[in-house]
């Protein structure tokens, strides 16, 4: 201990720092336009790439370098998209696909979190399920669709099962990893206060593993969409995937791409909603 008699000053709190990014030295003072560009650089560059790709697509199609019957064109896709969205078939398709997807995602999230928490927390549970999870996860699950059709028939149930099989693994694995990487000193701290197992999960394990869990759900959204579309291709009677499959068989490339755009939009919306949730739970990080 160093000698500092009658020290009464309290330590000052550290300055609150910006949550992301770092300071980059620039070689000359920045003009307002340069500053504006720099702030939105990622948006500007990303959008430029998209526009260039669309233009190239349009050019390839208009100049008939490639047969437009197979590739369609951005304008035709836009037209097909507008027609499809306003048709009565769209509402039915979107509803069916969304239902299958959300039920499957809900089931896989619920089951995946429970199994992931158990496997992360208990060594024996982890050992017990380890091989099964690894084997099924590394197998090409798309190939299981015929088996699922055998079990569940043509229709919604096969779709839900497929989404579940696709989406449950990222949730399980991420949750498990999240629990395993919880700071052991926090667990010990909680134990020193004689917490129950439920309290341990509620106040330490789940909040600490939450970022990983949400990352797992985000991956699950992506692979779950693949699952629902593939199931509708092979075993659907209705839905966006089914309509796309029909369009492909009829050489309606524009209709096919329109379906693709809608499914992408679906995934984007779901991911953005999840990001809002992440921000809500992570507000202590940026406070």
């Amino acid at each position, binding site marked *: *201990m*160093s*000698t*500092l*008699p*009658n*020290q009464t000053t*309290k*330590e*000052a*709190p*550290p300055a*609150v720092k910006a949550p992301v990014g770092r300071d980059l030295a620039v070689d000359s003072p920045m003009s307002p336009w340069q500053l504006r560009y720099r702030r939105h650089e990622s948006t500007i560059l990303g959008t430029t790439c998209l526009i260039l790709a669309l233009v190239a697509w349009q050019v390839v199609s208009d100049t008939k370098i490639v047969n437009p019957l197979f590739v369609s064109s951005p304008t035709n896709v836009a037209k097909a998209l507008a027609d499809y969205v306003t048709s009565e078939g769209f509402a039915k398709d979107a509803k069916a696909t969304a239902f299958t997807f959300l039920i499957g995602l809900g089931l896989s999230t619920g089951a995946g979190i429970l199994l992931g928490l158990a496997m992360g927390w208990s060594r024996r549970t982890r050992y017990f399920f380890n091989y099964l999870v690894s084997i099924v996860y590394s197998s090409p699950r798309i190939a299981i669709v015929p088996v699922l059709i055998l079990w569940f028939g043509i229709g919604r149930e096969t779709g839900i099962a497929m989404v579940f099989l696709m989406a449950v693994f990222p949730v399980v694995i991420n949750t498990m990893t999240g629990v395993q990487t919880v*700071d052991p*000193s*926090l667990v*010990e*701290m*909680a*134990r*020193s*206060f*004689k*917490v129950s197992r439920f*309290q341990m999960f509620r*106040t*330490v394990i789940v*909040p600490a593993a939450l970022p990983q869990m949400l990352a797992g759900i985000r991956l699950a959204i992506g692979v779950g969409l693949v699952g629902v579309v593939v199931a509708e291709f092979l075993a659907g009677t209705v839905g966006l995937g089914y309509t796309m499959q029909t369009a492909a068989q009829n050489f309606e490339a524009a209709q096919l791409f329109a379906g693709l755009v809608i499914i992408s939009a679906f995934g984007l919306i779901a991911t953005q909603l999840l990001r809002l949730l992440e921000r809500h*739970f992570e507000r*202590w*990080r940026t*406070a």
Partner: protein
Amino acid sequence: MTSDQYLPSESGEIMSALAARQSKEAPVSRSAHETKLEVDDVAIGYYSERQGSYFQAVQSLSFTVPGESLVALIGPSGCGKSTFLRAVSGLLPYQRGRLLVDNSLVKGPRSDCALVFQSPTLLPWRTVSRNIGYGLEMQGTPKGVRESRVHDMMNLVGLEAFADRYPRQLSGGMQQRANLARALVTEPVLLLLDEPFSAVDAQTRDHLGEELLRIRRATRQTMLLVTHQVEEAILLADSCVVLSKGPGSVVAEIFDIPLGRDQPIVEKRADPRFASLVGHLRGLLASASSVEA
């Protein structure tokens, strides 16, 4: 270095106090309070998963902590003092002997014992006030009672202005105060401190030490402090239990620190007996370290 060269003539009374302390039947403290912690021939060992080997951390420990006293447990690094503290708090099992907190046998984590960790171990997603109230919340203290006790505690440790901040917005010293407050607010029979000031800078450490003594004057809290800092032990504690070097630590010596428990740190440091006590303890530690177990 040996202990003798650090024993000037005026430390005669220390030695007599020491002698009294070493005879087992002597009264353990000036205060007439009952014993809050009784350690009787306790041994601790564990299996190291990393090394695949068995380690006997503590061979045989026996000492007591009287009510309202602050006992420092000091020993060379690797002597198992932190491990022992975890056994007292019920986080680790012990192999032999008896550990009694408030005259009841330690069988697992208990709500009348609170641990102040070496690192702040605050939950980063809870505000400071909710971190301090964590133990009370887990013990089911009603919200109203909890909030008023947390409020009073934050005033005591000087965190009242930071109630709604998150831990990462606090300096290391303030995080450590919150760590202390979280344990204190449960009003434990025994407060266990595991090198609580080792992770902060020297200036903050001195300041927090003074704070600890002030809080102790205000609360009359019984404390067991694990440390490897000689000066910290002398300046904060009423008596000192010295452990031998591990593995298989035993109590090398127990002695009182007659600097006046309510004296401020500056006064204690200026006391002529301070230097000799420090020297005596250094000597003990040096010889404890050279003992082959």
